[in-house]
C-alpha cells in the first residue's frame, strides 16, 4: 500500500479523531525530549494492523514501534517441532493449526513429513481435532500452539473429557514472562509495551502489574482498529512522559482489570507454567504451558516415548544460519536488516519461522510492503 494513503485510511474511520491522535503523538514524542522513543508490541495482529493500514507513516519520525515475540508459531522451538515430526514419522496421526506445518525443525517440518506420507491434518480448532479422534480408534495427537487465549480453548476441550485416543502435545506459550526477558536484554531500548487486547480479555490488565513494578516499564492494553492502536500509543507515551510507570487499559470496551476469571480458572486447571526455550530468543522461565499431572492421560509426552534423535544427524543449511528471526522477535533487528528477507527467504520458500506464520514479522512485512515505513520508503524511492 502507498503509505501516503495512511491518512486517507484513517480518515475513512473518523477523521477528527485520527487527526487528534496524530497530533497528540507528535506532541508527546517531542515532549519526551529524547530520540527515538522505542515501544514494543507483542502481537501479530497488532503488527498486521500497523502494517496493513500503513500506520508507521502516521507516526512521528522519532517514534519506533517494534514487534516483539508476538507470534506463537514463530517461537515454537526446534525440539518441540522435532517431537511432532518424530511422532508423525512413527506413524502417529497429528493435527495442528495450519501455520505449524511449515515451521522448521532440526531437519524437517511437519509438512515435509506429510510429503513423505505421514498423517498430518490441518484444523482450525481443537474441537475439530477431537472430532478427528472420534472418527476412529487411531491415536490422534493435537500439536497445540498459541498464547493463553488459544490455550484456554485447549483447556476447555480437555476438561470436557475428549476420547481416550486424543492427546495434546502442548507448545502453548504464555506471554507475560517473555516480556520480562525482553525488558532485561542489554540491547533493548524499549520504554514501554503495548499489550494485545484480546489476550488481555482473558488475563485482565492486572496480570501486567507485577511486571511494571519489577521493571519500571509501563504497559498499555490496546485494541486492533487502527485508531485503537493509535489511542493506545498516545496513552503509552503519556505514561512514559509522566515518569510514573503503570498499567493502563486503552481498550476498556473489551478488557477489564480482572479479565475473564472463569477462563483463567480453566487455563490453570489444565496447564502449569514451566520454563523453556522460545525459538531464537532465550530460555523463558514460566513461558511454556504444559499439562498438569491431573491431565497426564491426555499428555502426548506422557503417553508416547518420543525419540527425535534420528532427526538430529543433520547440519543446518547455510541459509538457516543467516536467519535473523531470533533478533527480529527480540525486537533488536527488523526484517530489513536481514540479508535473506525477500530474496532467499519468501512466503513461498521461507527460511525462518517469522516468514512462515501469518503472525510473523517477516511475513507481515513481506505482504504489506518490504518495509512499511514512510520514511524508509521515501529513502528507497530516492
Amino acid at each position, binding site marked *: 500500500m502507498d503509505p501516503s494513503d495512511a491518512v486517507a485510511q484513517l480518515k475513512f474511520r473518523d477523521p477528527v479523531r485520527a487527526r487528534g491522535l496524530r497530533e497528540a503523538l507528535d506532541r508527546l514524542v517531542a515532549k519526551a525530549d529524547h530520540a527515538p522513543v522505542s515501544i514494543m508490541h507483542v502481537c501479530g495482529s497488532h503488527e498486521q494492523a500497523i502494517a496493513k493500514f500503513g500506520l508507521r507513516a502516521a507516526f512521528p519520525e522519532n517514534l519506533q514501534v517494534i514487534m516483539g515475540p508476538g507470534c506463537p508459531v514463530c517461537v515454537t522451538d526446534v525440539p518441540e517441532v522435532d517431537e511432532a515430526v518424530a511422532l508423525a514419522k512413527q506413524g502417529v496421526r497429528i493435527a495442528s*493449526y*495450519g501455520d505449524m506445518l511449515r515451521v522448521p525443525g532440526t531437519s524437517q517440518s511437519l509438512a515435509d513429513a506429510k510429503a513423505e506420507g505421514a498423517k498430518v491434518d490441518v484444523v482450525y480448532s481443537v474441537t475439530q481435532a477431537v472430532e478427528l479422534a472420534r472418527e476412529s480408534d487411531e491415536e490422534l495427537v493435537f500439536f497445540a500452539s498459541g498464547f493463553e*487465549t488459544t490455550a*484456554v480453548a485447549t483447556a*476447555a476441550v480437555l*476438561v470436557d473429557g475428549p476420547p481416550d485416543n486424543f492427546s495434546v502435545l502442548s507448545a502453548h506459550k504464555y506471554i507475560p514472562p517473555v516480556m520480562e526477558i525482553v525488558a532485561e536484554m542489554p540491547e533493548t531500548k524499549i520504554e514501554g509495551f503495548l499489550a494485545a487486547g484480546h489476550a488481555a480479555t482473558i488475563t485482565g490488565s492486572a496480570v501486567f502489574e507485577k511486571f511494571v513494578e519489577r521493571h519500571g516499564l509501563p504497559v498499555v492494553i490496546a485494541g486492533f482498529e487502527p485508531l485503537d492502536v493509535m489511542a493506545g500509543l498516545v496513552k503509552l507515551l503519556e505514561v512514559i512522559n509522566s515518569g510514573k510507570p503503570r498499567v493502563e487499559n486503552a481498550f476498556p*470496551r*473489551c478488557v477489564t482489570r480482572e479479565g475473564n476469571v472463569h477462563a483463567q480458572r480453566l487455563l490453570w486447571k489444565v496447564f502449569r507454567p514451566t520454563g523453556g526455550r522460545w525459538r531464537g530468543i532465550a530460555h523463558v522461565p514460566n513461558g511454556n504451558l504444559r499439562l498438569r499431572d491431573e491431565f497426564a492421560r491426555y499428555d502426548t509426552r506422557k503417553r508416547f516415548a518420543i525419540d527425535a534423535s534420528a532427526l538430529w544427524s543433520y547440519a543446518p543449511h547455510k541459509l538457516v544460519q543467516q536467519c535473523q528471526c531470533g533478533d527480529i522477535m527480540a525486537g533488536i533487528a527488523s526484517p530489513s536488516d536481514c540479508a535473506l528477507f525477500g530474496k532467499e527467504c519468501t512466503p513461498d520458500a521461507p527460511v525462518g519461522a517469522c516468514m512462515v506464520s501469518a503472525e510473523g514479522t517477516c511475513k507481515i512485512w513481506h505482504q504489506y510492503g518490504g518495509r512499511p515505513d514512510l520514511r524508509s520508503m521515501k529513502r528507497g524511492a530516492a
Partner: protein
Amino acid sequence: MCLGVPGKVIEVDRELQIATVDFWGVKKQVRLEVCDAPVDPGDFILNHVGFAIRRIPPEEAAETLALYDELLRLADDQDLMTADVRAEIDAAPDAPRSAKGVRDGSE
C-alpha cells in the same frame, strides 16, 4: 490468530453450552463454556478458535464490527488479516437449521 471474530447470537442451547451465531450471514455453532457472562440471543460474542471468549453487549458491537466489515468487504483472501478472520469463522462448525431462541430445558 489473535484477532478473533465477532458474531451475533441467534440461539442459545444452555444445556449443551452452544450458541448459534451469525457471522456475516454464515451460521455457526460456537462453544460457550469459556465465556464468563451469560449470553442471550441478540448479544454479540467474540469467537476465537470456535469458543466465545467474550460477550459483547449490543450497544458496543458497532465499534467492534467496523474493522471486520472492512476486511470482509475487501474480500481479498491473500490478505493476512482477512484470511485470519475467515479462519476464525471456519473454526466453528456449521449450525443446523433450527428455530430461534433459548433452549434451556425449562421451556
